[in-house]
């Protein structure tokens, strides 16, 4: 087992990782930029090293500073958390070269799953349903048009090196194809330095349903059910839940088995998530694989009684996955609390928290790094807390969520707590019958 782990992250996830390390008796090293000197993860780690000025590129993204910090503190492993360098193949490689265990996948794994066209192709070859589309990159417009006709419009042109909605164009008719192809390529070149694109059937208003997997070096791969993350604003998830209201036992088994098949086909080790799109007819299609722990992992933990971070560490220490999946128990919902003003188009609201009260009680979990009189630095993302509730069923989880959100008090800054309370009164959300277009039609009332 590792002696000491350096957590290459900040905020709530750094604290989350420190907690699992402590339970395993592993010493912890926090790293922080100058802006995070008063952060909670710094307080609770055994050691802390300041690695740079506030800007992420000079601190949390600065590989030499992170490796150096691990070396001077004698850390034998690094946990990258999520975001930052969690899916950076170079970082994984440099850790290996520096004899530090990267708690995540190998550089080859990150590269292959990060190449979206390649990942899709790998899954397809292994029998995982994928969105119908081009077999790899589209060489030119006429080839593209041919494939589009075969698949059937609407189609979406996507950048192979892309993400975040860039280098994408939805095409509804044959006439629009040429123009859309050219602009997608130009945008892809500008955003990622790579104009290569591929084609997919465009699935209107899908649900976003992802499967959590865990694999170890002995070839064991398990799935821990699904998370429905369809409540998204500009492709950013705001509310996630497990199980998904759209899945029954048969569909869960089918999707779970497909995810395990996909993960096994690449000999996946560690925690990973296979993202699927679910269409109106409950057909599911592989979208992409995330080779890291995800923000919304707690809802899976609540329903499947598994500490996913702990399992990541154990697997990285060359042991078998400890907790095999059981039947899901109850229903869990996570609300991402951001320091944003929902009445002003979710404008960021950094500043000092003058008064804070976390909700508590049965079935309420808070993953957060904030405290009373903490000043939220303006340099990083706006996530300040995750409120996770558990209930015997979805209705119970929702009513508990309302109770907890009403109790949750944050003063001095604006938060999205009022937004979540309004969503929990929306009839479409309550019915469980919604998709990724839900928030497009949702209006926040001041």
């Amino acid at each position, binding site marked *: 087992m590792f002696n000491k782990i350096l957590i290459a992250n900040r905020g709530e996830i750094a604290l989350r990782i420190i907690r699992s390390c402590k339970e395993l008796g592993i010493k912890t090293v926090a790293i922080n930029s*100058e802006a995070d*000197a*008063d952060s*909670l993860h*710094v*307080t*609770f780690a*055994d*050691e*802390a*090293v*300041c*690695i*740079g*000025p506030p800007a992420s590129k000079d*601190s949390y993204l600065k590989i*030499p*500073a992170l*490796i*150096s*910090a691990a*070396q*001077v*503190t004698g850390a034998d492993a690094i946990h990258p958390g999520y975001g930052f360098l969690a899916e950076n193949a170079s970082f994984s490689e440099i850790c290996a070269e*520096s004899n530090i265990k990267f708690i995540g996948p190998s550089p080859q794994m990150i590269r292959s799953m990060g190449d979206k066209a390649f990942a899709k192709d790998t899954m397809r070859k292994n029998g995982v349903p994928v969105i119908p589309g081009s077999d790899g990159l589209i060489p030119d417009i006429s080839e593209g048009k041919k494939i589009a006709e075969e698949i059937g419009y609407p189609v979406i042109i996507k950048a192979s090196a892309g993400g975040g909605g860039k280098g994408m164009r939805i095409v509804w008719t044959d006439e629009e194809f040429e123009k859309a192809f050219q602009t997608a390529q130009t945008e892809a070149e500008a955003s990622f330095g790579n104009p290569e694109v591929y084609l997919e059937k465009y699935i209107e208003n899908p649900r976003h349903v992802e499967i959590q997997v865990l694999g170890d070096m002995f070839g064991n791969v398990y799935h821990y059910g699904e998370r429905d993350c369809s409540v998204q604003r500009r492709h950013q998830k705001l509310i996630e839940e497990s199980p998904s209201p759209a899945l029954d036992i048969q569909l869960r088994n089918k999707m779970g088995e497909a995810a395990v098949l996909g993960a096994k086909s690449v000999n996946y080790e560690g925690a990973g998530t296979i993202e699927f799109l679910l269409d109106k007819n409950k057909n599911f299609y592989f979208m992409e694989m995330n080779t890291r722990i995800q923000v919304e992992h707690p809802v899976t933990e609540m329903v499947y009684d598994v500490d996913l971070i702990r399992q990541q560490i154990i697997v990285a220490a060359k042991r078998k996955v400890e907790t095999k999946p059981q039947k899901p128990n109850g229903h869990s919902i996570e609300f991402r609390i951001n320091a944003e003003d929902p009445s002003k188009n979710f404008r960021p609201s950094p500043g000092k928290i003058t008064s804070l009260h976390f909700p508590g009680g049965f079935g309420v979990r808070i993953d957060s790094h904030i*405290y*009373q*009189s*903490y000043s939220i630095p303006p340099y990083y993302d706006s996530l300040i807390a995750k409120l996770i509730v558990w209930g015997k069923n979805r209705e119970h989880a929702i009513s508990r969520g309302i109770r907890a959100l009403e109790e949750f008090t944050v003063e001095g800054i604006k938060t999205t707590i009022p937004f979540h309370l309004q969503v929990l009164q929306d009839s479409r959300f309550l019915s469980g019958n919604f998709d990724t277009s839900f928030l497009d039609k949702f209006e926040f009332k001041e």
Partner: protein
Amino acid sequence: MDLNLIKKLVRIVDTSGVTDLEIEENGLKVKIAKKIRNSQIITQPQFAPQSIVLPHTSSEKVEETVNSTGESAAVMHEIKSPIVGTFYRAPAPDADSYVQVGDDVAVGTVLCIVEAMKLMNEIESDVSGKIVKVLVENGKPVEYNQTLFLIQPS
């Protein structure tokens, strides 16, 4: 011996960021030293895990007032580490230190090495002056912006 002067000097050291003070006047030498507490300033409720926190130093200039008759104050210049790494006083284990307390340095004089990822980074002075204090022991780890030397600019 002017007891009042000595009392005033003790108070100055006690209430300021100065940790060492030495003055000589009319054949009388007075040296006052204050123990540095390596504790991180925490603004939230106190918890007490066994913390080994690498020392933080403030980025403000350290002011050293010499005596109560109002003679000019000497403002120290801080040399800080630009990277995380290990601090070395000399280019090699058996070599002489780059600088000692009392040495005169110029802009560009190499003061020390901070080693990071097997690369030896030479840290140069950005002022000319005299080395007043070396704040880190040879071979100890340093973090970003940690103060390494105090130089009295000339």
